[in-house]
């Protein structure tokens, strides 16, 4: 039971962490809570169904499942990154100098718009994600792990490592950290702030798309409002880890996923969504800036 819940927790935790990274990166740079981020995750799931459907109709899935899935991921990520990029340019950039509440309201507006847009074009009923990965199971310590769970955990960890390397080692990654620390100074050194912000939205949206696709594969069902709850939970994960901190978002995502599945396993699954928030409140009472948040003096 214990190991089973850990495995389930790591699976959803990896997904929460991928979404949380987008919240935390945007917050780190713009101090904006991008409420539309959950919808990008939802779009990723829908685009996954659409593209996989197209590749299946073309006969590609039957020919090579791997190739078909790979292309589905690439296309969904590209489209979601384009959405993220466009949303920033249209809804946030014009409000860069406005009072802080304005971009927040704009974000909520984008979120409502995207939900309704998907509801109108895709319908309000659940969509089914085809069951494609065979249910190979690995058994150990009285627990079973499906191939899909392995895939989700490995993919999340891989993407997180790549993001970490990108932010720590590349020139653009370093510039992202510089912009998060002092925008005026970054401009004085010749860093194009608008470009860095765009890159941040593109990366964050791409990660959310992968998360959406993996959840669609995991649960098999997709709806136009899945971005709302997942978005709030991932945001909670980002706050739990310390908003603005990339390792914090990763830790927060996994902690949240494990708490949730432990609660569902040992207590009752009816209150699954509530455990996370109870723990969030307790941790924030003890550590107001989150587990890995910057302390007031060096921020």
């Amino acid at each position, binding site marked *: 039971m214990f190991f089973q819940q850990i495995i389930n927790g790591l699976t959803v935790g990896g997904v929460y962490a991928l979404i949380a990274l987008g919240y935390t990166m945007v917050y780190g740079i713009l101090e904006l809570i991008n409420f539309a981020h959950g919808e990008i995750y939802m779009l990723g799931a829908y685009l996954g169904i659409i593209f996989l459907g197209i590749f299946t109709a073309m006969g590609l899935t039957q020919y090579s499942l791997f190739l078909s899935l790979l292309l589905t991921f690439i296309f969904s990520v590209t489209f979601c990154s384009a959405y993220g990029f466009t949303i920033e340019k249209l809804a946030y950039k014009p409000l860069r100098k406005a009072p802080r509440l304005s971009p927040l309201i704009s974000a909520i507006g984008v979120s409502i718009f995207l939900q309704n847009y998907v509801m109108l074009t895709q319908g309000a009923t659940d969509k089914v994600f085809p069951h494609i990965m065979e249910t190979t199971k690995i058994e150990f310590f009285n627990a079973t792990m499906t191939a899909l769970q392995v895939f989700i955990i490995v993919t999340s960890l891989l993407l997180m490592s790549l993001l970490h390397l990108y932010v720590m080692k590349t*020139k653009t990654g*370093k*510039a992202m*950290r*510089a912009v998060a*620390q*002092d925008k*005026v*100074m*970054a*401009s*004085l*050194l*010749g*860093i*194009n*702030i608008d470009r860095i912000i765009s890159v941040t939205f593109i990366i964050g949206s791409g990660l959310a798309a992968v998360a959406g696709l993996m959840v669609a594969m995991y649960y098999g069902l997709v709806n136009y409002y899945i971005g709302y709850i997942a978005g709030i939970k991932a945001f909670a994960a980002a706050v739990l880890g310390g908003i603005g901190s990339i390792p914090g978002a990763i830790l927060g995502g996994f902690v949240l996923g494990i708490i949730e599945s432990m609660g569902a396993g040992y207590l009752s699954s009816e209150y699954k969504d509530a455990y996370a928030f109870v723990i969030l409140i307790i941790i924030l009472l003890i550590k107001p800036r989150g587990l890995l948040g910057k302390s007031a003096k*060096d921020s």
Partner: protein
Amino acid sequence: MLLLKDIHTFYGNIEAVKGIDLHVDKGEIVCLIGSNGAGKSTALMTISGILKPKNGGILFEGEEIHKLPPHQIVSRGISQVPEGRRIFPRLTVMENLEMGAYSVNSYQLSVVRKHPPLIPPLTRVDTGGVTTQLEKVFELFSVLKERRNQLGGTLSGGEQQMLAIGRALMSNPKLLLLDEPSLGLAPIFVIKIFKTIRELNSEGLTILLVEQNAKAALRLANRGYVMESGKVIKEGKGAELPHDADIKKAYLGE
């Protein structure tokens, strides 16, 4: 080299710079002094493009730059060490310096993109001379080399000022704007900073220096401007200004 014509800069409704004219010629050290709140930092931020002037124009090497975004002004060859040093506290010394060279490398990349090679180079070729510039900075301030892997926020005030100047030099600028580089430093660092300014200038770098330490600054400068409540009230040769009766009374405490 640099020419400001009737520059007016506002913060909202507050006019902080009220029509200043100023010029800096190639190879000069020009010093800008004035009491607190006179508008000196505002003037520098307007030159760097962080603040946009409401009226007037700025020419750099004959080109209008006051409508350009800050990053393009940097790539034209103007670098600023702002007031308070503004070191990135959670980047290492080395990373702070690398950020100083940001514009150099992006310029290179755009050159590469115009003529894409068949196989893109795996490592970027340093045609912008960033490595030589880094060596020069380390030669100037050897502490920075010792502390290159330390976080910027852990340096002392004097070391941070050296890092700030070193970082601004990484783009190999033609004109360096310095905003109160000696402020809050121990005397030994003040001497070091002033010595460095003189050295850089003798190697051909043009410098616009804002200073509270008027005496030392005027001794260093070819020419000086005195600002008060947003206006230039006096200008003259570096050697002459200290003998002006008003200046003596207001800024030199004599």
